[in-house]
């Protein structure tokens, strides 16, 4: 199993302090430059193996989408690096990045926003070919578009239609077709089924799994829906407030979550067999990512937190086939079961 994508010590801060004039403050008779940032990602290490589907889960604001966009080179990391097959790609020039863009494609959450409403489906699907496979002849291009439309279950004769003529599920199929058309190796999917209805979600998930099998794709799949993860992913990374809590094979995580946050998150999934809501109640609320808590970002809500958790940031450690960042787990303070 070889590594396809590697993320090393990734940080991303978004400044919210405005321009120079906003930043200047008078303090104790001296001018000071104020700096305020949203700490979206705080030191994330993650590897995606060739051919697998790695899911990143977490609640809103945990930084999962920022990780996806940084991997794709849509935003620049503040610190750290992204490697694709051993080659660092986050600092490449746009021209150098071109060859990688063909190999990595992205599917976005909202198919109503991610398709250009003024381009017909054929135009939408031909555009990536023009950029990435400009040697293809007109007839070949046409064949390719028809073939990919067929593959995602959209009738090729609808190519002249525009996005507004399609339902949400069909639009998401078209977005998937747009990603597949350049024969990528790696697809980053940011909540690709969250905007869709249950019966349509199943269709799109099946389509993505078929495509993975037929084309040997590797997925980085971002979602907040844990039951989708359980079904779709080979491995899961649980994020909280810009950090990785736990990375584990899906089956292991769902059978035995070890990190206190993973435990709480999994306990809250509403299940068909439930008679009433049952869940591990966390104290308090997610802290603001502007002023991060010291030590472990989860300590304020964790039932197992002690002084060490409040002061020292836990590192991601390998235990069996699981990576986990928790002092309590390391010190065996959490009774299992």
């Amino acid at each position, binding site marked *: 199993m070889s590594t396809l994508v590697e993320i090393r010590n990734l940080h991303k801060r978004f400044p919210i302090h405005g321009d120079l004039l906003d930043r200047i403050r008078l303090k104790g008779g001296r001018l000071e430059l104020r700096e305020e940032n949203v700490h979206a990602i705080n030191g994330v290490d993650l590897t995606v193996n060739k051919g697998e589907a790695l899911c990143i889960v977490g609640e809103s604001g945990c930084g999962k989408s920022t990780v996806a966009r940084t991997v794709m080179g849509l935003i620049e990391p503040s610190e750290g690096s992204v490697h694709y097959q051993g080659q660092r790609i986050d600092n490449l020039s746009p021209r150098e990045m071109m060859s990688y863009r063909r190999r990595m494609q992205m599917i976005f959450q909202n198919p109503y926003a991610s398709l250009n409403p003024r381009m017909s489906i054929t135009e939408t699907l031909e555009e990536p070919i023009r950029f990435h496979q400009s040697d293809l002849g007109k007839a070949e291009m046409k064949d390719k578009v028809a073939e990919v439309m067929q593959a995602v279950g959209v009738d090729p004769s609808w190519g002249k239609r525009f996005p507004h003529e399609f339902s949400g599920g069909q639009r998401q199929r078209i977005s998937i077709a747009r990603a597949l058309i350049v024969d990528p190796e790696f697809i980053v999917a940011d909540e690709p089924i969250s905007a869709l209805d249950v019966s349509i979600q*199943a*269709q799109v998930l099946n389509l993505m799994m078929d495509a993975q099998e037929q084309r040997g794709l590797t997925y980085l799949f971002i979602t907040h829906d844990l039951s989708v993860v359980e079904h*779709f992913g080979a491995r899961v990374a649980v994020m909280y407030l810009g950090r990785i809590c736990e990375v584990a094979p899906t089956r292991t995580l769902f059978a035995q979550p070890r990190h206190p946050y993973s435990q709480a998150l999994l306990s809250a999934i*509403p299940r068909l067999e439930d008679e009433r809501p049952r869940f591990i109640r966390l104290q308090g609320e997610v802290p603001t990512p502007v002023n991060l808590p010291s030590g472990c970002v989860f300590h304020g809500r964790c039932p197992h937190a002690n002084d060490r958790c409040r002061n020292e940031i836990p590192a991601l450690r390998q235990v069996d086939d699981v990576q986990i960042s928790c002092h309590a787990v390391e010190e065996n303070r959490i009774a299992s079961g």
Partner: protein
Amino acid sequence: MALLEIHDLEVKFALRSGPVTALRDISFSLDRGQRLGIVGESGAGKSVAAFSILNLISRPGYISKGKILFDGNDLAQLNPSQLRNVRGNRISMIFQDPMMTLNPVLTVGAQMVESLQAHTRISRQEARKIALEKLRLVHIPSPEKRLDQYPHELSGGMKQRIIIAIALLLNPDIIIADEPTTALDVTIQAEIMDLLLELCEDRNLGLILITHDLGVVSQVTERTIVMYAGRIIEMGPTKEIINDAQHPYTQGLINALPQQGIPGRRLNQIPGSMPPLQQLPNGCAFHPRCAYAKAACKEQIPAFTQSGGCQVACHMVAELVNQAGKSPALENSPSTGQDS
């Protein structure tokens, strides 16, 4: 007679292209202390159904037929001032997006006092006292402080708690909650659902919960209505619907859930998508997507058949039950490996 009874409700929207029927043949009832779930996909009409109970359908929509009997009065016939005595007072509503429901320029306290004073003659001090009491009821930490805060200072879960507190201000008999947790994270969803259930049980409230999440329905409600293309297609005890669905659409919906599939394998999908209301097919609206459809399904709209504890609008129910002997819905559902 139940507290709320809906008979043959039909809602139409007068569009430029002609009237479109968004809701038809809706009949159900609810009493104090009962919890009813309405599930369906977007466009099935579940929100229209909820809004029409309080006659909140605005033009071009209108109630074209049917009765909404609440305490013996037909809400569809009341004038606006009579309706105001029911809205908020007797039946209150919780909407989907807590960010959109609260007024961003008023403090929480001001909004709560305002609703109280709109309905009852009460002094500000007294109103604040009631507000405080309701905030405690929904387990908001340091409620005194919250009264003077603005909505933007609160998290999504906290805002939804405040909206529930506002819904409780006048001690209503029934709460209608329209996707109350769809905009919230799963851990917060669990807390809010737990709170709603607790309130219903402790205060003998009736609850109509509209959601697309079958897991939530199974956790909170006693009875469930499944809607498709503006109609009720199946209703009955929640446990029966979840474990032994009769209508092919309900079965498909449950089987399509990732938690019902075998990890890594294809999910059981329903082909196609729900038709737009302007282009409903003849007969059963589900027949183009249904694996069991026969000639009758294409011509005749199915009436309700009693099957077990459920009422099912499907021509094929009797046959399907005989064929399978037991629920076909359970055939493909292996244990999820999560039961502890």
